[in-house]
């Protein structure tokens, strides 16, 4: 199959499989991922190698766009609106998973620190698509639902920050294992990667804002925004800064410069969906089925302790912020699914640490499939326990 035929096939097959899986109430993301596994090299080998080879490129672009879009959350207005419960719960559930998974991998599974840190950081991500689908299906409403929506909306922003910090530390550890002044180097490299990303995002945001006055049409706006996002990703890659943070800062600084900058974010939405589809199918295709049976313990530990970490963190956050009993007990169960951001981070880890990357990525893909399948059930259980399910099987209760 030639490359273009392959692309056409992936897009159309993705569209139809999403429609199909929608009938049994799973999000499109799950369909793309399963499709990728099925048509990928591990099973039917229907995806041309050229396209598989472009996985790194596509994921960098997609993650850059996502990080840019997530940056919008950091407007002063938004923080005022979402309230202290959501902030406490989201920060602590993300950190809870990060710390617990890292410690379990390091101490119990005896993995090296840099691998443990990467797993820990990826575990902080949550995929809201499945959760929101359940909320919509059961027409859930109330305080619990509002808090859950707030948490899943902001959660990925914390994940990106956690991942960027962990990646910087992991890179420094694995590069300078034998160097003198080890700790100082680790610290210096991490600060450089994060602070540099902040400066880059800031400079590009200001340039983008001032040059945007010369735009005349919607088409120009789209090309201009995409151009600047690519420029920012490219410079970050070139200077070895954090791509995720550079783009998140670009979005965050832009949204605070002027209220009318929402246009830059909205315009990208017109082109992002085929890219996202491709990203998930390729993520599925990158699964190495051969490694799966060797992952048993690692996969199981990740599956269990990520959720435990989130439950503890969310409960603690709810307690500190004085949220209700049902939020304290059950909110963590709405945060089980993981997908795009976790897979993207795993792809970055795969390209940055080629020796262990395959193992990390395959673990994340396999656990993602499990989480996407059980996540909706957990969310439904949590909503029922909180007493906020309005419609059950099409009936009012």
């Amino acid at each position, binding site marked *: 199959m030639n490359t273009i035929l392959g692309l056409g096939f992936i897009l159309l097959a993705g569209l139809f499989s*999403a429609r199909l899986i*929608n009938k049994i109430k799973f*999000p*499109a*993301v799950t369909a793309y991922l399963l499709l990728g596994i099925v048509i990928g090299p591990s099973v039917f080998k229907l995806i041309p190698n050229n396209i598989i080879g472009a996985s790194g490129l596509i994921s960098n672009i997609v993650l850059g766009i*996502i990080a840019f*879009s*997530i940056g*919008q*959350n950091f407007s002063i*207005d*938004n923080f005022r*609106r*979402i309230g202290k419960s959501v902030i406490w719960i989201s920060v602590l559930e993300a950190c809870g998973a990060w710390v617990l998974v890292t410690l379990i991998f390091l101490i119990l599974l005896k993995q090296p620190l840099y691998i443990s840190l990467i797993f820990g950081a990826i575990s902080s991500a949550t*995929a*809201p*698509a499945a959760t*929101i*689908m359940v*909320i*919509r299906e059961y*027409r859930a*409403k109330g305080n619990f639902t509002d808090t859950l*929506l*707030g948490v*899943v*909306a*902001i959660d*990925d922003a914390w994940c990106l920050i956690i991942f960027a910090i962990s990646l910087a530390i992991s890179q420094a550890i694995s590069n300078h294992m034998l160097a003198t002044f080890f700790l100082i180097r680790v610290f210096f490299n991490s600060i450089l990667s994060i602070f540099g990303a902040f400066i880059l995002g800031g400079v590009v945001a200001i340039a983008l804002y001032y040059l945007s006055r010369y*735009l*005349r*049409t*919607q088409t*120009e*706006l789209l090309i201009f925004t995409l151009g600047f996002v690519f420029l920012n990703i490219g410079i970050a890659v070139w200077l070895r800064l954090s791509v995720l943070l550079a783009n998140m800062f670009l979005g965050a600084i832009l949204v605070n410069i002027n*209220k*009318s900058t*929402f*246009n830059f*974010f909205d315009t990208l939405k017109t082109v992002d969906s085929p890219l*996202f589809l491709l990203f*998930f199918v390729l993520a599925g295709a990158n699964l190495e089925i051969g490694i799966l049976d060797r992952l048993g313990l690692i996969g199981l530990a990740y599956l269990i302790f990520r959720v435990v970490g989130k439950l503890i963190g969310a409960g603690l956050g709810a307690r500190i912020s004085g949220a209700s009993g049902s939020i304290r007990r059950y909110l963590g169960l709405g945060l089980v699914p993981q*997908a*795009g*951001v976790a897979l993207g981070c795993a792809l970055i880890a795969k390209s940055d640490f080629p020796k262990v990357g395959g193992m990390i990525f395959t673990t994340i893909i396999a656990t993602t499939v499990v989480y996407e399948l059980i996540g909706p059930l957990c969310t439904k259980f949590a909503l029922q326990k909180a007493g906020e399910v309005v419609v059950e099987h099409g009936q009012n209760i």
Partner: protein
Amino acid sequence: MQVKEVMSKEVITVKRSTTLKQLLDIFTTFHVFPLVPVIEGDNVLVGIVSFRNLINVFQPHQSQMLKTVPFLDEEEEDIFKVEFTEEVGSLVVAEDIMEKKFVAIQEDASLEEAYKLMKLHLKEEFPVVNRAGRLLGMVGIFDIVRYIFRQKGVIK
């Protein structure tokens, strides 16, 4: 020519607390639902409601915050089959459905600038405000076209 010279000054506005029922009643005789400015206090513009926002009533979880969430499936709500009760008319208020992020144009902006912004944002109408953010009127693409026709002598 500045925007304030061609804008419509007689604008029907609503408040944050205007209910959905009142909104629909006010515009029941209109041909299409217009762009309605939401104001508070001393005419300060805080939001706008368009017919798109009326559809938000059918999609309660399509909040502003979720716009930044990646990989979300678009909700396909069949508006012909949706069920809600009469009380929605008085429970939903303008503040719940209004757009808080919107483009407003300054009163002293030129017509060329207004037209450029309309093309850039794919909009046919903008609220006009002064430096303090107070609503002064509305300017639409038709106001600009009419001005050009008048200038060429087609209409007096």
